[in-house]
């Protein structure tokens, strides 16, 4: 610590240069932070999705309809707590380009166990009591200025028995969703109201949500459900929310190579920039360093001063850059949900910064350490 007064002026000898290199390193690590934050954020999100919530859908695809008759059969499988039929379709409100996801559920006893929604009890009760009622995601209600009690006509992809595709719902409450993949533009409606009113596809569902008595039985119950319908005309595939998230994220996996390539390019460019900066700085300061040595500082001390100078600048800048990335997350979250910066990323980032600093300063520091006092002073 007592050498700090020697290192500090070295850093600020040319403020313009230091500020520029500081900014350059910050920018690079801001990028590093965002890219790594995306990657770990995605992994983190997958890990947090519920493994004890099963989704039963057609074996062929996610949108293949299943008959409502399977409901009781799934309920009878041991370990199953609640089964909720779910039908999905799309609608628009005023702006035909802005799609709203409509999720029809049957709000039977305990239905919320099979979802990740957060609903206040009075809203849940009102939703159950009102056939045409709808619960609106808080953000969506704010977007369109909807209030509880409003009637909203939505133009949808599903035809009613009278041929019209406009469905009207009464807003009875708001809800929020814990699942980051849940989507913001989503409303919940009553399955029975929808099923009785629609023209085609009556008594079919998009999928069933299943809650379990014991989360540890997820795998065995999922297998039992699929076995129950094996070789029927409606084979099922049962997956936990986590498995579903995993398979969706696999497709992003290809990008990992690209992310690594970008980070490598960034670090190489930084290495060059800091190395030239340090070399320049040493060349200009040769007489000063010689004076230091004349005063009795060892070769090793001078070597360490130079390394420390570069390390302080790089690590501080990296910290600042990671902070910038962290501040940018709420903005980036609009494109990639669930960004986060765990300590591993910060640690790896700072480690990289220290490495860049040490590698780039090694040669100049070595030169400084080996400086011959007589020659250096004479060159003045």
């Amino acid at each position: 610590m007592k050498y700090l007064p020697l290192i500090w002026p070295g850093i600020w000898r040319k403020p313009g240069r230091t500020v520029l290199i500081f900014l350059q390193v910050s920018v690079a690590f801001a990028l590093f932070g965002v890219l790594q934050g995306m990657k770990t954020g995605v992994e983190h999100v997958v890990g947090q999705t519920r493994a004890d919530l099963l989704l039963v859908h057609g074996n062929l695809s996610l949108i293949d309809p299943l008959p409502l008759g399977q409901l009781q059969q799934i309920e009878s499988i041991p370990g199953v707590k609640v089964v909720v039929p779910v039908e999905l379709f799309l609608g628009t409100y005023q702006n035909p380009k802005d799609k709203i996801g409509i999720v029809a559920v049957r709000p039977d006893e305990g239905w919320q166990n099979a979802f990740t929604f957060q609903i206040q009890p009075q809203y849940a009760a009102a939703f159950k009591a009102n056939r045409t009622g709808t619960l609106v995601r808080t953000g969506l209600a704010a977007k369109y200025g909807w209030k509880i009690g409003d009637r909203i006509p939505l133009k949808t992809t599903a035809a009613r028995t009278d041929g019209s595709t406009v469905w009207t719902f009464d807003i009875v409450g708001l809800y929020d969703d814990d699942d980051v993949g849940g989507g913001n533009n989503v409303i919940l409606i009553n399955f029975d109201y929808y099923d009785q009113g629609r023209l085609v596809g009556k008594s079919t569902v998009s999928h069933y949500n299943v809650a379990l008595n014991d989360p540890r039985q997820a795998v065995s119950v999922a297998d039992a459900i699929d076995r129950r319908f094996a070789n029927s005309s409606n084979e099922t595939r049962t997956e936990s929310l986590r498995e579903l998230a995993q398979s969706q994220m696999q497709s992003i996996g290809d990008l990992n190579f690209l992310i690594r390539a970008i980070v490598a390019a960034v670090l190489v460019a930084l290495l060059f920039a800091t190395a030239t900066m340090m070399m320049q700085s040493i060349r200009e300061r040769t007489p000063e360093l010689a004076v230091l040595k004349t005063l009795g500082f060892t070769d090793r001390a001078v070597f360490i001063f130079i390394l420390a100078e570069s390390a302080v600048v790089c690590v501080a800048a990296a910290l600042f850059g990671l902070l910038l990335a962290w501040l940018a997350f709420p903005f980036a979250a609009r494109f990639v949900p669930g960004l986060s910066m765990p300590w591993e990323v910060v640690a790896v980032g700072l480690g990289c910064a220290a490495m860049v600093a040490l590698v780039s300063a090694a040669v100049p520091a070595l030169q400084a350490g080996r400086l011959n006092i007589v020659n250096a002073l004479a060159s003045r």
Partner: protein
Amino acid sequence: MNFFRQLFAILRVNLAGLPQRLGSGLTILVGVTSAVGVLVSMLAMGTGAREQQLAEVRPDRVVLSTTGSRMGQGNISEGEVAVILGLPGIRKDARGEPIVAMQSVVPIQGRRQGTGLRIYFPLVGISPNMPELAPETHFTAGRMFQPGLQELVVSNPCRRQFMGFEMGDRRPLHGSDWTVVGQFDRGASQQCIVYADVKTLMTVLKRTTYSNVTVMLNSPADYEVLRDAVSADPTLQLEVQREADAIEEGFKPLNGLLNFISFFVGTIMALGATLGAVNSLYAIVDSRRREMATLRAIGFSGSAVVVSVLIESMLLALPGAVLGTLAAWLLFNGLSASPFGFSFQLSVTASLAVIGVEWALVMGLLGGLLPAMRAARMPITTALRAT
């Protein structure tokens, strides 16, 4: 004229002195190279994806889908199809039937060749007149599916990408087996396309409406005729789009995301490279203070000094653009990627190289601005005394 003579004189001195300032020059070069390399390879994803999407588009093919529906998710009833068959502007085949193909799209799962990863891709139920609608289809093995039978025809890329698409392979689909009876190529397209008879597929899936309808026009100019006829008919709730527009709209979210990521990352990289260039040029200008002051003292103008520094900076950045584009081309061109489930190959094109050069020049220009000003503003007397 005098200005240019001065400019060239200074430039010559500047460039001749470059080898002595190798470090600073290299910093600019490496910075710009990595920035341009990253930008170009990221953009190559976007171009590759677009090339793939629009590989076999024809101007005389038109897609009809339910108004407001997403690509492949419309609801077109038999009644509407009957009306569509009678619309004007549609080409007739040899038997005098209008070339109108109904489609029903269902995502099915397959497994990746090699890795065995599960992936969803579309199975398209289509009317048996598919070869007339898509004359670029060229069967390499087997035959077209027979109406009424549970048969599949697949494009050759499926065979390469997924398991279970060899001739005679049976794929379980909704409780029964479907047999692969034909394999085809479709121009340069690398998309996996699986076709089945639309009526058979819809019976099995218990569907009553089509996802969308594709028609062949007499000529591209008949698009307006068809569109006006559709909007004049109150029973049709349909959107009429040229094939290219329909595809473009379907892929808008993907392309938008790819472009956003590219320019976001590219901008940050460029910012870093520019800062590096500023630093290096300050160093270069500083180390030449005496030279510059001497030139000014013997009558060279300040503006010639400014412009010479700017040009030098851009000249240093330019090879970075070339190297960066080259690196992107060597490392990534033709690389298969399938982010978000859509397979394509990265494509580094000439227009991307132009973008790279433009960005490099801007980085050089912005990076050189402040150091150039300093070079010109330096008081001659103090600079001459500098060591």
